[in-house]
């Protein structure tokens, strides 16, 4: 039944993680950048769950549980920060968020 | 393998096409038109006739032909997409609205698992001896059924939100915003209010919940959710009505302010599908409340082999198994329709809330009440 090697899942999660990181670097829209971070977190969750399955240890699932809670809290604060920046700048483009040099 | 798949398909067809959809669409007629006309002291639909069928040509049939006429009209209307709207999303959105409304039905149990052997009643439960239990009466018997329902109902926000956004119209956008805000707000108290019931029944599996509601407190009072969690029942009913955007919580589609809210710009069958999904969701609310709070398919004192009065091993009034099943499914349907009726009564008697009132009710009344309910329940459960 469980014939798929764990390595496949891990490779998928690595690909997702890198995809998220690339998106974070390439996209300039603050909200889309944040979405890319969510992709990375999901890749991490997949890694945890795959390893939990492999080790037969629920610790991975519980870690994912915490990660999801953290992601929810981060989403709240992050979107609030984005809304706040938008109020000042009228733009979501991070290239416009450059009051400070460097 | 193949028979299993066929069985599941059959169950899906039965639940969706024979139960949810017909009741849902009939409600458009009986609930929204006929019942409202009765409450408002007017005649209501009575002109459409089925004149092509001999013998029925002259009868108004409580307005049922209107329903068919409506359908015909919807199909033949022009499908208008406003200028500047996102065409792709505008076309996809009705499906996005209908999908969760239908998928949610997967975990509703219409009856206990079918028992191929003999049924012995013990401590208010049917116990299947010398046979297997087969899951014939719910599409999927998930362990985390209730969580599944919450998950899907959370997803149902997208239909309304994207519909409002994709229309490129102010009223639609406001409607979409309102609907997503309202649904997020009420999801919290919805889940919290039912947490007390989860504590008491100790399970998230809906069928197991219903089985446990067959217990009789003191030998006579059925341990239905409404009995042990009366406050949660009202909060849950209110939150679910808000979740499905029914009046008096129908801010997202308040016609006196924003025409029809997020589906202002939808017409023809797309409109019909969105409307239908709302009605199916309304029926689902009835089914879910019946399952959690009104004993689901339980008929009081009726167990697998007949009526028992008290915790007795033998039935006081024996019934064949098929009759029990029929009674129970009938009871479940009745309860569902009763809650539906209640929702329509509320809709036509209460005035619509203001938007801030809706939010205040959700966050300042429902949420603390459901929290208090949960805490008290936890204490009581811990003591008992």
């Amino acid at each position, binding site marked *: 039944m469980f014939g798929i090697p764990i390595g496949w899942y891990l490779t998928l999660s690595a690909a997702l993680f890198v995809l998220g990181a690339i998106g974070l670097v390439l996209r300039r829209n603050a909200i889309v950048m944040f979405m890319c971070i969510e992709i990375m977190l999901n890749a991490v969750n997949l890694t945890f769950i795959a390893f939990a399955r492999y080790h037969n240890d629920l610790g991975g699932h519980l870690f994912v549980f915490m990660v999801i809670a953290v992601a929810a809290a981060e989403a709240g604060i992050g979107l609030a920060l984005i809304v706040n920046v938008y109020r000042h700048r009228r733009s979501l483009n991070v290239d416009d968020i450059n009051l400070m040099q460097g | 393998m193949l028979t299993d798949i066929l069985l599941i398909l059959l169950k899906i067809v039965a639940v969706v096409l024979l139960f949810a959809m017909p009741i849902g669409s009939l409600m458009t007629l009986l609930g929204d038109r006929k019942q409202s006309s009765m409450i408002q002291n007017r005649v209501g639909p009575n002109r459409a006739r089925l004149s092509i069928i001999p013998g029925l040509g002259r009868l108004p049939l409580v307005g049922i032909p209107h329903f068919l006429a409506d359908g015909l009209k919807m199909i033949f209307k022009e499908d208008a997409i406003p200028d500047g709207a996102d065409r792709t999303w505008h076309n996809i959105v009705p499906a996005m609205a209908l999908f969760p409304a239908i998928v949610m039905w997967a975990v509703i149990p219409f009856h206990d698992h079918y028992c191929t052997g003999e049924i012995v009643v013990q401590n208010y439960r049917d116990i299947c001896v010398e046979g297997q239990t087969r899951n014939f009466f719910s599409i999927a018997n998930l362990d*985390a059924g209730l969580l599944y329902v919450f998950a899907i109902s959370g997803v149902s926000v997208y239909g309304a939100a994207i519909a409002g956004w994709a229309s490129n119209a102010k009223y639609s956008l406001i409607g979409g915003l309102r609907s997503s805000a309202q649904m997020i707000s009420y999801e919290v108290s919805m889940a919290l209010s039912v947490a007390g019931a989860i504590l008491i029944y100790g399970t998230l599996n809906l069928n197991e919940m219903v089985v446990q509601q067959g217990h009789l407190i003191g030998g006579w009072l059925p341990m239905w959710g409404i009995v042990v969690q009366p406050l949660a029942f009202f909060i849950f009913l209110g939150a679910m009505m808000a979740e499905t955007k029914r009046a008096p919580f129908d801010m997202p589609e308040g016609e006196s302010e924003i025409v029809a809210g997020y589906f202002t710009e939808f017409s023809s069958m797309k409109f019909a599908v969105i409307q239908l999904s709302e009605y199916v969701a309304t029926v689902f609310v009835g089914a879910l409340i019946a399952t959690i709070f009104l004993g689901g398919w339980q008929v009081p004192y009726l167990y697998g082999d007949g009526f028992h009065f008290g915790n007795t091993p033998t039935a006081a009034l024996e019934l064949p198994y098929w009759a029990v099943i029929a009674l129970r499914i009938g009871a479940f349907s009745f309860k569902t329709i009763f809650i539906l009726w209640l929702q329509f009564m509320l809709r036509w008697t209460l005035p619509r809330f203001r938007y801030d009132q809706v939010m205040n009710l959700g966050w300042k009344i429902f949420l603390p009440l459901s929290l208090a309910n949960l805490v008290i329940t936890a204490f009581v459960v811990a003591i008992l």
Partner: protein
Amino acid sequence: MAETIFFIVFALGALGFSAAVLIAKNPINSAVMLVCSFFCLAGIYVMLSATFMAVIQILVYAGAIMVLFIFVLMLLNIRDDEIEAPRLSIHQGIAILAGTGIFFTIALSIAAWSGSSSRVAHDTMSDTFGTVEPIGDQLITSYVLPFEMAAILLLVGIVGAVVVAKKRF
């Protein structure tokens, strides 16, 4: 065999939708693509017998977090004129090259790990692995400390979000 097909479908779905998040011009499209990607991942979780986590994934990620994203996008009402111009392709090239390099680094170490023995899933798994009950049990026994801390975390998140996004004091 059926499992492999499911895996390929879900994996391609997750990857494709995630890529669509990056490519989509309109943030709302990105958000919906991300939701689809989450659904695919939930499917993969079920394949890894993490049913509870799959449900939580839908419940929290798709049902709450992404709704918040879409809500904010609608609130700010980003229209076409604010959609970003494409970036310099040389940046894209460098980023994609670097990303591919990192990916292969990770993939190589994964390959080294899974290649050394036939790393398939554990075979002595209990039936209830990954369902609600054992996870709930753990949450209120061994993991009660992080569980309580998560409560504080969510409180901090709420307070912080209100403080930052409130229009006036």
